[in-house]
């Protein structure tokens, strides 16, 4: 195929990808809702939920002997990780989250903080 035709196809391809991303972003913004609770998941299992309306500081300990730590801070209706002893510190650099569905992920410690709207998850077994 001719090179200029290929270049045209390249542009269409990039445009389609960006269009899909734009639609996704629009959907996210339209469906965005304020969250009320910060859910803590360790290795996919929810372990705790904290209300965003109460200022709070929690140390999340993971690993076999609790040697991994992430400090979750809830302040003025927003949640963020203030300190972590993971190697990359990506979670600690994440901006505070407050909208439903927003997440802060610490890949090395398998910890996920997710903003939710309810105090309990109906899909979750009533444990602890």
């Amino acid at each position, binding site marked *: *195929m001719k*090179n200029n*035709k*290929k*270049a045209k*196809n*390249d542009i269409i*391809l*990039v445009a389609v*990808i*960006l269009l*899909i*991303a734009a639609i*996704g*972003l629009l959907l*996210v913004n339209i469906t965005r809702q304020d969250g009320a609770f910060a859910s803590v*998941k360790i290795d*996919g299992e929810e372990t705790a939920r904290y209300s965003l309306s109460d200022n709070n500081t929690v140390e999340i300990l993971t690993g076999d002997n609790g040697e991994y730590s992430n400090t979750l801070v809830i302040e003025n209706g927003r949640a963020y990780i203030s300190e972590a002893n993971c190697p*990359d*510190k*990506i979670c600690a*650099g*994440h*901006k505070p989250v407050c909208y439903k*569905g*927003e*997440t802060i*992920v610490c*890949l*090395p410690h*398998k910890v*996920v903080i*997710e903003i939710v709207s309810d105090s309990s998850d109906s899909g979750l077994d009533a444990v602890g």
Partner: protein
Amino acid sequence: MNTKVKRTALLGMVTSVALVLAYLEAILPPVSTAVPGIKMGLPNLAIIFVLYRFGFKDAAVVSALRLFIVALLFGNVMTLAYSTAGAVLSLTLMGILKKTDKFSTVGVSVTGAVMHNLGQILVAVFLFETVQLGYYMIILSVTGSIAGVLIGISAGILLRRTEKLKI
């Protein structure tokens, strides 16, 4: 010189180039700490070169070697799972796109970049059972497209400059 020996030697050299590029990328400061995963995808330059000059099979071998050695040197089993998913999806789609002969290296590279991000996000969604990670994918597909265009242009230049290379 024996063609097979020459091919093997060249592929070995390209593999080491891919490793150096991966290392270079690893020591560069992250573009954004808020959205992990934004990167140039420099090693893809080497992979695209092999894909065009040697073919899909050799590209798969170089890619697999790169994944394994990078995991051994700088990573762990977890990072291997992420990079493997990204690389398999990326290389497969790049191979298909190249075969259609409808796109230049730019289109192939952009697809590779976005698919690499998608593969890693899919693993993260699977591991964390959190579909919300999909939000990241929106940002990553934009940054991936930009990185993909730059790598694609570079790959195009590289391939034109090495046209006389007998393999």
